[in-house]
């Protein structure tokens, strides 16, 4: 073996380069393309103008998620523009022959939840979607990243996009996670350490014993938020956990073909001696339940910490943005968040709306009741998650606690559908972004794990989950 050792990222990338020409970015072949109603209409228009079909329609799957209501999904969408966007997707998918998991379909759900649960997402693949959280699919050991609509059109038209190979970063976490610490805390911790732009230009590989010990659901939560530190994407090498998860899933290879695929997937590991452009290491024992206090996901801290003051920031240039951010949040520098009352609790989004997340929440709230005056929404990531939750009786646990279990969609993760957090209100949210107005104009978001969100729903305020378990 005289070949240069490669990272898993390089192996997958190199295997998908259709053409590498001097002076051009690589033409990268895309195995799987997911589309949704928001970022696809202009791309379909482009095809129509050129008079061309999709290059290989069997590699594209569509769903409706961003604009959909989470109540009364069988009725027409009330808001005219949202309805128009979903209807446009319907019309486009029909005209171009794209498989669509529309409202009412048993496979409908948030695009990054349904791909994995249907087995469409597989190790070694290149996967794109006009959505930055496409990085979620990297949990299976694939190169998955978000693209803009011009690129959606490129993939539709040619099954390729033009890309420069990003640099590689390894983030290694070893050791054992403490009590009450879950994968959401790991990723919030990493981002708080390296900032919202700390991995820009890189493709991250997560590794180490604290990562390989995680379930697929938990791995997806981590990869999902890779984009929140600027990374192009993030992946985890596939292993037995991955193969077990995929076995028997609808679009995964079946029978002998599955065994053969596993044999190939096992090759997808970083070679001994392969070099990353950057390596970071953290100790799992140092991670505590996390919460964000500001308006980007890098502004996070241990739930027991206090918000820093502007003078504690590393760079003076950051002070103005920091002050602006706290003003938006209505919070004081140097104060703790513990005990801060919350108005809304949102458990959902492509970060934390899988069955395991719902089980975590149900486990901790069972037999308890939400605090008076707090509105609690539990939004399953997909129709399949919703049905599974009902099969397991989680719906009853939620109902007894006063949590509202609704139908799948992006919901209050972004203020685009009916579910919005009102101006000035505080929401503890399991989603991935705390940007100004993200959950509705002037809404204020604390990002946290499903466990932390669940206990806040019970106490009505920011709480250290470790006091509860």
């Amino acid at each position, binding site marked *: 073996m005289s070949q240069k050792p490669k990272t898993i990222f390089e192996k997958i990338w190199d295997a998908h380069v259709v053409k590498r020409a001097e002076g051009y970015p690589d033409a990268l072949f895309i195995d799987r393309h997911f589309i949704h109603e928001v970022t696809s209409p202009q791309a379909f228009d482009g095809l129509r103008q050129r008079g061309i079909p999709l290059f290989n329609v069997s590699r594209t799957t569509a769903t409706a998620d961003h604009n959909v209501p989470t109540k009364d999904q069988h009725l027409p969408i009330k808001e005219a523009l949202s309805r128009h966007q979903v209807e446009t997707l319907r019309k486009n998918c029909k005209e171009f022959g794209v498989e669509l998991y529309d409202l009412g379909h048993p496979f409908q759900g948030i695009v990054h939840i349904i791909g994995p649960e249907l087995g469409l997402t597989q190790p070694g693949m290149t996967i794109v979607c006009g959505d930055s959280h496409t990085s979620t699919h990297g949990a299976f050991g694939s190169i998955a990243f978000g693209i803009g609509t011009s690129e959606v059109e490129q993939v539709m038209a040619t099954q390729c996009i033009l890309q420069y190979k990003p640099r590689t970063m390894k983030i290694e976490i070893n050791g054992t996670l403490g009590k009450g610490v879950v994968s959401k805390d790991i990723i919030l911790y990493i981002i708080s350490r390296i900032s919202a732009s700390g991995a820009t230009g890189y493709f991250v590989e997560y590794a180490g014993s604290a990562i390989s010990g995680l379930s697929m659901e938990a791995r997806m939560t981590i990869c999902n938020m890779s984009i929140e530190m600027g990374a192009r994407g993030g992946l985890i090498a596939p292993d037995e956990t991955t193969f077990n998860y995929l076995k028997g899933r609808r679009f995964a290879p079946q029978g002998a073909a599955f065994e053969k695929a596993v044999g190939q997937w096992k090759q997808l590991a970083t070679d001994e001696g392969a070099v990353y452009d950057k390596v970071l290491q953290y100790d799992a024992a140092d991670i505590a339940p996390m919460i964000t206090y500001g308006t980007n996901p890098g502004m996070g801290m241990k739930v027991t910490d206090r918000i820093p003051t502007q003078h504690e920031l590393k760079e003076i240039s950051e002070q103005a943005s920091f002050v602006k951010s706290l003003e938006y949040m209505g919070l004081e520098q140097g104060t703790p968040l513990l005990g801060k009352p919350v108005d809304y609790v949102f458990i959902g989004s492509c970060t934390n709306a899988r069955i395991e997340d719902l089980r975590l929440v149900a486990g901790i709230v069972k037999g308890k009741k939400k605090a008076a005056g707090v509105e609690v929404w539990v939004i399953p990531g997909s129709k399949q998650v919703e049905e599974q939750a009902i099969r397991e009786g989680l719906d009853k646990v939620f109902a007894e606690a006063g949590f509202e279990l609704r139908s799948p969609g992006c919901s209050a993760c972004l203020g*685009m559908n009916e579910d919005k957090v009102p101006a000035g209100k505080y929401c503890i949210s399991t989603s991935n972004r705390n940007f100004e107005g993200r959950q509705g104009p002037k809404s204020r978001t604390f990002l946290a794990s499903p466990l932390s969100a669940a206990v806040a729903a019970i106490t009505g305020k920011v709480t250290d989950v470790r006091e509860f378990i």
Partner: protein
Amino acid sequence: MSKEKFITLISGAVPLPVENIDTDQIIPARFLKATTREGFGENLFRDWRFDANNQLIEGFVLNNKSYSGKILVAGKNFGCGSSREHAAWAIHDYGFKVVISSFFADIFKNNALNNGVLPLVVSDSFLKRLFDLIAATPTAQITVDLQNQQVKLPDGTSEAFEINAYKKTCLMNGYDDIDYLLSLRTEIRAFDQAHA
């Protein structure tokens, strides 16, 4: 769709010295419901430009008539967050041709370039100088010379900037990535069949 050609731009600049400006600020999600590419400029920085009653917020720089031009100058990590190309469309539709910052988020950078908007990376110190200069002289004319990859200030100082050679050619000629990819269709078909 090929774009207008970009060679040299001489223009005033609009300063927005805020860091980590995310795509939800550039164009809030509730304005992403259009199914065409037009008209997003109206809602660029919507919640910074207008209050809850749709009244102009006087203090915001886009509402300040002292500043105008086709160059937006912003703090580092501009365009982080979502992959929505609507952010690039809004900036383009509003009339900006260049965004200058010391750091851009990756997807935004691609989206801007795919829409004929140049994301121009300068050093932190040059960015600071630029902000100071615009504060002192709001009408200062900045020259962006793409051919020679130089950004020049009226005081005669300048800084070289990097741009990928391929992307530069595309901008200068109004080319689109898709034209190149379409020319590879036969090779792609063979690849697809081999990997079915």
